[in-house]
Every structure is written in structure tokens, then in C-alpha cells.
């Protein structure tokens, strides 16, 4: 019995260490390319999330904005690493091998001849703590990590809200390279 109780803190420590190691893996993956000019990096801090929420509250009143606002309030931060001048498929595999862990559950995996896309989630107590998106094709690569605590319903809303303000601009920007 004594041995067992002695084991508990060790196990806890191991568990904590593993969690730490995983966070580090993403961190490492991001930091690998901080100096790489081909990549653009975006980090949206909790403070910025707060400000964005404030902006939305001040500028629109309709239900959809409220939904978006409630999601925004649940997001702690977003990190994006992207490039449109690298072999995305190679980086996709690279990212996958770095992030292999049983901590993430696969949410969605779309593969076709020229592109790969994967959504993964990290769950804690039934809440999604992190949404990880990795996508790659012949010339694009993107890795996105969204931290916070959401329900799957929130993710659904996010997938279905077509009228996210600013969405059109984003698509336009994407179509015009």
C-alpha cells in the first residue's frame, strides 16, 4: 500500500511531464519556423481575443454575431503558421510525426490526391481544450492551433456560421494571390 501511495506523485509527475512535452512539441514546431521567411506566423493572444470580443459587442447586435461572440469569449488564443511557397505535403507529414500522441483525437481527416487536411482535438473533462488543424497541398501549408474550452456544439456553430463578418474579405483575399 505504501508503495502504491508513493507511486501516485510519480505518476502525476509523469502525466504532467507528458502534457508539457506535448505542448512543447507544438511550440517546437512553431519555433522551428520562426526564422523561416517562407512562413507567416500569427499569434492571437488572449488580450487580442478580448479586444475582438469587445469590438463585436460594440458593432453588431444580431443573433449570429452573438453566437460568434460567445465562441470568441471561449477562445484563449490562436496560433497560425502558414506558407504558400513550400511543399505542403512534406510539411504535413512532418507535423504529423511531431504531433503523434494519444493526447489528440482525430476529428476530421480529408485526403484526396493533392491535399491533406486533418482536424484534431484535445479533450479534457468533455470539453475541447485545443483544436488543431493541419493542412497541406502542393504549395500550401497551414498549421493552426486554437486554445480555449469549447463544446462540440461550439465547433459546429463555427462550421456552420457562414456569415461571419469579415468572412467575405478573407475569401476574396484568398482568391487573389
Amino acid at each position, binding site marked *: 500500500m505504501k508503495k502504491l501511495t508513493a507511486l501516485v506523485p510519480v505518476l502525476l509527475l509523469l502525466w504532467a511531464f507528458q502534457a508539457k512535452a506535448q505542448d512543447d512539441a507544438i511550440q517546437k514546431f512553431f519555433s522551428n519556423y520562426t526564422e523561416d521567411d517562407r512562413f507567416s506566423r500569427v499569434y492571437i493572444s488572449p488580450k487580442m481575443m478580448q479586444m*475582438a470580443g469587445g469590438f463585436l459587442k*460594440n458593432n453588431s447586435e444580431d443573433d449570429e454575431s452573438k453566437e460568434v461572440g460567445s465562441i470568441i469569449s471561449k477562445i484563449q488564443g490562436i496560433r497560425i503558421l502558414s506558407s504558400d511557397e513550400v511543399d505542403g505535403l512534406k510539411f504535413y507529414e512532418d507535423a504529423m510525426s511531431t504531433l503523434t500522441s494519444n493526447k489528440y483525437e482525430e476529428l476530421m481527416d480529408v485526403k484526396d490526391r493533392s491535399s491533406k487536411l486533418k482536424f484534431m482535438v484535445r479533450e479534457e473533462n468533455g470539453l475541447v481544450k485545443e483544436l488543431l488543424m493541419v493542412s497541406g497541398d502542393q504549395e500550401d501549408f497551414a498549421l493552426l492551433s486554437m486554445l480555449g474550452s469549447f463544446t462540440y456544439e461550439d465547433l459546429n456553430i463555427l462550421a456552420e456560421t457562414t456569415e461571419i463578418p469579415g468572412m467575405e474579405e478573407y475569401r476574396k483575399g484568398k482568391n487573389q494571390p
Partner: protein
Amino acid sequence: MSMESRLKELLDKYWEAETSLDEEKEIRELLLAVEGFEDEKLLFGGLDELSEMEPQLKRPEGKVKETKVRRITPVWLNWAASILILVSSVWVWQYTEQRKAEKEAYEEVMMALAMIQTNLSKGKESMKEIEDLKYLNTTNQIFGQELMNK
């Protein structure tokens, strides 16, 4: 012209509000001289009395000396005004900067969300194709329709 008719004339003019100050003075003098015109006498006499009245209120004397009256000199006023303008413009500037930063943050966040959304919907679209296949399952319908078209 008798004094009465002159007075009447002047009073008519007075009620039309066309008398000059001199003429009003004349009305007063005439009113003192003639008999009758009690209402007018009351009015003009009353006006005179009013103008002679002195304000009855007096300042409490003891306390006035205790509080110092500080005069704001124009120099001070200038300073105060410039500081006020400075402070308020800084405030306005900060406010607009804050709004600008908020907007930028919002756009950034929306871009990230849009990225997630387009990719999520990519998955949904391919799911939809499979969903659509479900309807093809009823083979009879397809063949039936082809037959009907023939």
C-alpha cells in the same frame, strides 16, 4: 393744448411703446401736475418707487472674512484650458487607437475563424457527397427514371 390732452396723447404713444425717454419723463411730470389719471399715476409712481428701492439683503459679515477668495488669474485660466485640451485630445487619441486596435484584433480573429471554417466545411462537403450517395441507394429509382426517359 391743455395739459390733459397732451398727457393723453403721450400716454397713447406710451402704450404703443413709441415714447422716447424724454417723453416718458414728461409723462411723469404731467401726471404730478394734473388731476385724475389715478391708474396711470399708480403705475408711474410705482415704477419710480421700484427704481428707488434698495436691496434689503445683506451679506453675513463675520463669515466672509474666513473664506479666502482666490481669483483665477487669466494666466491660470490659459494654463487650465491648454491642459484640458491636451488631456482631452490625448484621451480621444487613445480612444480611437483603442478602437483601431480592437478592429484589427477582430479582423485577425475573424481571419483565423474563417480559416477554420472554410476547412471544416471542406470536410463537410466531402461528407455531403457521401450523403448524396445515400439517395443513389434506391437503385430502382435511377433505373426507373432512365426507363421513363426512354
